């Protein structure tokens, strides 16, 4: 060490940073409940509006439940993403995170896991609601359902977390987030809807469900890798 220079603090390990960021987000959310309650209420309202609009004489449209479920999750997730990063911006905590001696990709992964946890908690309420309102038979194969739901949610959240973080200092960010996010997550939504619809069929086709699940896993890996590469570069200023 050359004289006159201070010792640099050791960089925090990757997964410890992820856990710290995740724990911070979950703690804040459990104390205030702001995003969780509003996201859940909005998603449930979406599903109810679809039910009012589409259920005729007690009969739901054939195969419509899967699409309605994922539209509600997508809209609610967009609101949650925008609000999560708006909270960081208002408290100036995002700047603090970026200045901290931690790996930047770890911040992304921590935020991603927080958003996924939030959305999965909302889905735990939405799935029974959709199943009830649209007589969708979603829970006949619960493990396959869990796989499809989690992988689709990770796909949505992986792109959404990156773009929400990128847009936090941009004007018109509320409008731009869905404009940027929705075209890119269309393949994930299609796979999620098709996978969920395949689960609800009376004649269960395991090969077809496995296909959509593997496609979702592939999308998740591609999007997360791209987001890890991109996050550092776009958050550097």
């Amino acid at each position: 060490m050359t004289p006159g220079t201070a010792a640099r603090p050791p960089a925090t390990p990757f997964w410890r940073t992820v856990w710290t960021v995740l724990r911070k987000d979950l703690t804040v959310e459990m104390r205030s409940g702001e995003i969780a309650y509003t996201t859940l209420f909005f998603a449930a309202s979406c599903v109810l509006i679809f039910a009012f609009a589409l259920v005729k004489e007690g009969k739901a449209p054939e195969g419509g439940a899967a699409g309605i479920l994922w539209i509600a999750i997508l809209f609610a997730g967009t609101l949650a993403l925008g609000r999560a990063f708006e909270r960081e911006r208002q408290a100036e905590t995002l700047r603090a995170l970026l200045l901290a001696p931690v790996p930047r990709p770890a911040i992304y992964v921590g935020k991603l896991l927080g958003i996924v946890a939030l959305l999965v908690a909302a889905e735990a309420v939405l799935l029974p609601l959709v199943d009830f309102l649209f007589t969708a038979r979603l829970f006949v194969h619960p493990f396959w359902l869990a796989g499809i739901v989690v992988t689709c949610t990770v796909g949505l959240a992986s792109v959404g977390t990156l773009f929400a973080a990128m847009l936090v200092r941009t004007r018109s960010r509320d409008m731009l987030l869905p404009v940027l996010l929705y075209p890119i997550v269309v393949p994930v939504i299609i796979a999620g809807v098709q996978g969920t619809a395949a689960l609800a069929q009376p004649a269960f086709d395991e090969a077809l469900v496995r296909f959509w699940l593997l496609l979702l896993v592939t999308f998740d890996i591609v999007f997360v890798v791209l987001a890890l590469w991109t996050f550092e570069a776009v958050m550097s200023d």
Partner: protein
Amino acid sequence: MLRSMSKCLTFVRCALVVAAALLVLTGGPAVAAQDQPPQPQDEFVPVGNSPAPEQIPAAPLLIGAYIVVLGGLFFYVLSLSRRLGAVQQDVQRLEGELKRRGRA
């Protein structure tokens, strides 16, 4: 930081290869199980002379397609030229203004 990120990415890259391989191995039967759309043509077969009456209904679509392409390209080039002309005019105006201020 770079070492932990590269480790993470190496792991993820491996996972990507495995997932893609799994998809290839298991997706085929699933894809085959999908509803069958009409079989696509996999090659174009030329004919000699098509009977004239069969060509007529196709003509509006064919002509419309070529008009769309050529018209679209023409209007784009026009738009680009206009934008370029407007910006170059502004550049010349501002350069003149700067020169005047430089002299003044």
